[in-house]
């Protein structure tokens, strides 16, 4: 099945003084029309670099070594600057992490919302203004008509993020890329923004790539989840498969580190160690130095994807035929029981 957006074997590195940082190492995934794919992982796992390459927003020292990004069959990486401009902002919109810096402080918000519409579509300023007003109302800016003449500093963090969402939506893109859109916000505002995104997605049938490090947010918004570590996708599947029936020890670690798990225990679980230095990533499975379930083969060879279900894959040698049986953490086992119970009930 060919999706709306297909990324195939993407490999990106950065040239720095000390050498070459291998930021993305062979990432492939598919995004279907109208679905939400969440990409999770720690800082430096390559999730932001991956999506920035879709928008062709990588800095000058980045090099795309191989791979393709197909939007409706057309490779975005082979487009020239003019063709890229037609995609960026028009067919793919982006919501940035920090609403404090994503907006231009010297431009009123009405103009900022209209900007890409005037750039991409043959439309009068008046009509663009009308469309911007509608959209600002849709994202929940009250008295939007008056507020359009206001500047970013006159809005709160949550309101600014709503404006950033309006900017991403103005050209009715087929895909929205949201790079940690709620990380800078507090929990109640985060919940509102997530509800808003889901509502808009339902109305406009937009596909969303949602980057976050918070699995609670993932549970709330995603249809499918890709877990990234050290520049690779290590596990991908439907949201309940990843959150309740995960197979990769790194996903287990992320789940166990959630503060809402084992709320009564004094210490929060943390994954030991730090992510590898991507100047020289370890041979074999990049996660093995931090993995208490690591096998000997992890130190030597990179694990391929093993199929868990038709929709669920994980790259860990634990799934190889003949691999030793391991006992995952208690909360993972509890999740699996819930997963099985729900599967039984669904039948």
């Amino acid at each position, binding site marked *: 099945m060919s999706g709306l957006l297909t990324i195939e074997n993407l490999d990106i590195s950065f040239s720095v003084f000390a050498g070459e940082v291998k930021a993305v190492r062979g990432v492939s995934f598919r995004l279907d029309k109208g679905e939400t794919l969440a990409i999770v992982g720690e800082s430096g796992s390559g999730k932001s670099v991956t999506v920035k390459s879709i928008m062709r927003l990588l800095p000058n020292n980045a090099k795309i070594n191989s791979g393709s990004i197909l939007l409706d069959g057309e490779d975005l990486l082979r487009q020239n600057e003019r063709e890229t401009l037609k995609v960026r902002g028009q067919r793919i919109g982006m919501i940035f992490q920090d609403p404090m810096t994503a907006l231009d402080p010297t431009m009123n918000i009405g103009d900022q919302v209209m900007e890409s519409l005037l750039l991409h579509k043959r439309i009068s300023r008046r009509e663009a203004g009308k469309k911007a007003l509608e959209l600002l109302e849709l994202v929940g800016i009250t008295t939007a008509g008056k507020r359009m003449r206001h500047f970013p500093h006159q809005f709160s963090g949550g309101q600014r993020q709503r404006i950033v969402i309006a900017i991403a939506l103005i050209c009715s893109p087929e895909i929205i890329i949201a790079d940690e859109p709620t990380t800078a916000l*507090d*929990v109640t505002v985060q919940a509102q923004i997530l509800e808003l995104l889901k509502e808009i997605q339902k109305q406009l049938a937009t596909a969303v790539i949602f980057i976050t490090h918070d699995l609670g947010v993932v*549970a709330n918004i995603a249809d499918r989840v890709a877990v990234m570590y050290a520049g690779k996708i290590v596990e991908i599947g439907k949201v309940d498969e990843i959150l309740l029936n995960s197979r990769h020890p790194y996903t287990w670690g992320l789940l166990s580190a959630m503060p809402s798990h084992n709320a009564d225990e004094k210490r929060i679980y943390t994954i030991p160690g730090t992510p590898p230095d991507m100047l020289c990533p370890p041979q074999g499975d990049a996660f093995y130095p931090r993995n208490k379930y690591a096998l000997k083969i992890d130190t030597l060879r990179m694990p391929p994807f093993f199929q868990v279900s038709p929709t669920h894959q994980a790259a860990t040698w634990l799934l190889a035929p003949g691999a030793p049986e391991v006992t995952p953490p208690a909360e993972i086992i509890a999740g699996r029981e819930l997963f099985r119970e729900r599967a039984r009930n669904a039948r």
Partner: protein
Amino acid sequence: MVEKVTDMESAAERTRKKILEVRRLRKTFNAGKSNELTAVDDISFHVYEGETFGLVGESGCGKSTVGRIILRLYAPTSGDVFFAGENVGQIKDKANLSSFRRRAQIIFQDPYASLDPRMKVKDIIAEGIKLHSLAQTKAEMDSRVNELLALVGLNVSHANRYPHEFSGGQRQRIGIARALAVRPEFIVCDEPISALDVSIQAQVVNLLQELQEERKLTYLFIAHDLSMVKRLSDRIGVMYKGKLVEVGAGDEIYYYGAHPYTESLLSAIPSADPDYGKTHRRVIYRPERDIKSEALALRQISGDHYVYCGEGDVGYYREKIELKKGAAKKTLDRENI
């Protein structure tokens, strides 16, 4: 306004030493102007020695302002702060103020903005030691700095580097070492983890807990994330628009928080279960529904659980919390069978 409950105070409460007491604190910014804002509105609470008091609420509710008034970084419009029995606002002479500044420290929210980019890590950490003359010789100073770096889990070789060479989590460790350098008794942690990755947040929280046990520190921990605050805090205060709306033991607030605003905060905590949203509805707090006809105050519901409400609502909240506890007990019994 706290109701007088002296006769109901438990013996345990009387024997515990209050290191910090905040009485009827109020702070108004831009007083008399069109953009007047009362950030802190008549707040009273206390913090016992050696405990962590969590202060939660959304951005702009005044929680950071409270932290800063306590440390005398802002002057309150009215009200008093007592630290170890002394009125902080009344400290006049330099020596006493300097001693207060040494004993009460702060860890800031933004590890990027709070460290001077032109100072080496060792100078950042040593600044307070120098200021308070806590080291006599240069060798002693260096050994203190190295000891602090090791304490917060940084490498001694990091001492000669600059802040930009570190990740967010490492910078926050530098901020913690800086605060600990002067051997404080009390630390205001002003959203020290909000800017960090979830996995790094857990590391910093665990570090803060270890340090507290080792050094008998008292924390005022300011944050907006109740699930994280619950881990750390012995007691929690919930703030909304400058007012303290609920105060109680950490578990009590987390499991049986009764004020509608606390309930809205609790219901906004994301769960790892994808089906959670199908069965749970987020509670949306509508302040206009609160009864306004009576004098509202922080009133005792039970033990050390207080809710901001009218005199006539105490019974309602008492019943509500009992019901919540009953329901929780029932599920527990069911699970045990």
